[in-house]
């Protein structure tokens, strides 16, 4: 079955895409929304323009839709680009990396239903530490590009998700109730390498901005 992946460049949507391919689905296109609203409930923002480089190393066509990020307008824009993916690539389903957000998942479900597409959420309700472990075990190289919760700070930016990171974030989870995989928006990640990539990406420059417990790292990659 041909499918499209709602792709943000972060670990969840990339891992969902990986699982889809492993189960025999043909990923015909990646669908990315670029929101101008930094507090969007729907979409992951940091480093999103880098998805073009990720799509290139995956050799998968990328459809980008810009949105102003107003709540319901965002959904119209998402529906428009999924409709285009259906028309242009004859996809029959959409894959998402939704883990626990009923807000995000239900809106994508409604759009898929109205367009007569099946909707696949292979990470839905997955234990977050299990998710991080799976990502490490399946040779994903993922770095943290944003932190947005106390007591996380700029020292977390650029950290690689590995066994050491999992131990560290587990302690924060136990003490501060920070979601280990950042499901509550505590962290944002970027995938530099995984089995879907034909070559690894490298960070050649970084620009860190933020204050207190809200920091982002814009990266240049090659």
């Amino acid at each position, binding site marked *: 079955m041909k499918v499209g992946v709602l792709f943000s460049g972060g670990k969840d949507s990339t891992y969902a895409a990986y699982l889809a391919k492993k189960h025999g689905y043909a990923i015909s296109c990646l669908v990315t929304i670029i929101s101008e609203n930094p507090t969007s409930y729907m979409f992951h923002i940091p480093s999103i323009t880098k998805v073009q480089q990720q799509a290139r190393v995956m050799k998968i066509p990328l459809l980008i839709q810009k949105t102003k990020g107003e709540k319901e307008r965002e959904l119209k824009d998402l529906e428009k680009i999924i409709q285009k993916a259906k028309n242009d690539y004859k996809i029959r389903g959409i894959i998402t990396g939704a883990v626990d957000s009923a807000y995000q998942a239900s809106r994508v479900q409604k759009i898929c*239903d109205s367009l007569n597409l099946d909707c696949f959420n292979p990470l*839905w309700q*997955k234990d977050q530490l299990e998710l991080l472990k799976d990502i490490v075990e399946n040779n994903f190289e993922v770095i943290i590009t944003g932190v947005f919760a106390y007591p996380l700070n700029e020292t977390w930016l650029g950290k690689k998700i590995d066994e050491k990171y999992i131990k560290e974030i587990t302690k924060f989870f136990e003490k501060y109730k920070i979601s280990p995989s950042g499901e509550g928006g505590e962290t944002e990640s970027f995938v530099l390498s995984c089995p879907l990539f034909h070559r690894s990406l490298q960070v050649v420059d970084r620009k860190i901005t933020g204050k207190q417990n809200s920091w982002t790292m814009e990266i240049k990659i090659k």
Partner: protein
Amino acid sequence: MILLISINKISFHYYEFVKPVEDILRRNNICFQTTQYNDINQKILDKADKIIICGTSLKDNSFVEEITKFEWLKKFDKPVLGICGGMHLLGLVFNGELRKAQEIGLKTIKYKKEFFGFKDDIEVYELHNYYAKSEEFEVIAESEKCIQAVKHKHKPFYAVLFHPEVRNKKLIENFAKN
């Protein structure tokens, strides 16, 4: 042993509709076995102490065309919990029908009486285009649009239209343990 029945025809939906139920049982150290509905046989049914029939996606609903494969439910007397598509098929097996009613996302439902530890108004996660109406089931909870929880009038068979594996996981724990 709890028997989890998958009604997904598309196996990739396992991760979304069956694994979350398995994870709840696993976290509670409850022994279970998962079987696809086409592979159910008497030996498996004899081993099961209880059954949970998991849900499926909005489009992956071809089990409705094969409802005769669930005729064994008429002779089965141990506790059964149907979730969403599981509620649909329980209704159909027991002379009911499917009626159109779409609900997707978080909604509030109202219990008329206590149901596996839940009562009054509760927020649930919904994902369905239909609900089942059968005269053989007592209605236990409703949303603004339709029936949400039922109990068979003579058998220990229960069903919910919403997804307790997403919100209200305790309902599955309580069914499995008590």
